[in-house]
């Protein structure tokens, strides 16, 4: 299974950073192992190559409202 071995090679380089933990949030579509590995490999390549730059935060434009106010507007 070429895609799996490609992903394993990326995650376990012979030199440099050591993998301490790995997790995934499952996707919308059912996929086969090869497809999953290809997608995961592509994502980590984006990270490692700098194509997906690192960000420290998650900027959002939110307008927080209290639950009481939200519920009061319902009636």
């Amino acid at each position, binding site marked *: 299974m070429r895609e799996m071995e490609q992903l394993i090679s990326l995650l376990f380089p012979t030199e440099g950073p*050591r993998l301490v933990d790995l997790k995934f949030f499952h*996707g919308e579509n059912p996929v086969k192992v090869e497809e999953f590995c290809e997608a995961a490999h592509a994502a980590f390549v*984006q*990270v490692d190559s700098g194509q997906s730059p690192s960000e420290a935060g998650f900027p959002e434009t939110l307008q927080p409202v209290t639950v009481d106010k939200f519920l009061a507007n319902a009636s």
Partner: protein
Amino acid sequence: MSYQALVKAFSNREELPIPVDAVLTWIRDHTDHRDLRLHGVGRNSKAFRGAFRRLGIPTGNMYSHEVELICQILYGRDLEPDWKRLVVVKEALHVFDPAGQQVNTEDGVRRLIREVITPELRATSFAPAINDFLGPYRAMAVLLPRAARRKLKIARDEGKRTSTEIANYAQLPDFYVDIWLDIGEEAEHELAGF
């Protein structure tokens, strides 16, 4: 500090949506995991919505085995904002995963992937996979915290608000909001222990 402490810290919040940065800031301020890096990634397929990779970088001191920890949080750039929020927090919470629930071997990666893509195997005994499946609910305990959840559940059960309206208000996926309103009381106790 622990995941339990995080859930407790947010439990009385009644102002929604909870900003994702508020959760990231709490983790940085109260744990050793200060280096959290977010990466929006392009997705060719919808195989997965997000990922968490924790790396140990050798410090370069040849006489010690010390490493610096970097936590990378990947999320699909194409996801809707409510899904991005849940995915980022779910992945960030993996900083709390104990050693027995971490995946750091080739065999572990192979097994995790098999179990992530086969929901019918959710009766698995593989601890990291169980952890992954519960991840979204661990995030819901923070993003739709106890005090708010209790009031919103009553409103939904009495027909004053639908779960879709509550999901829009909390900026979270409808699917998880509906489930969390039903199971949150019991699940929070199981997941966070209080």
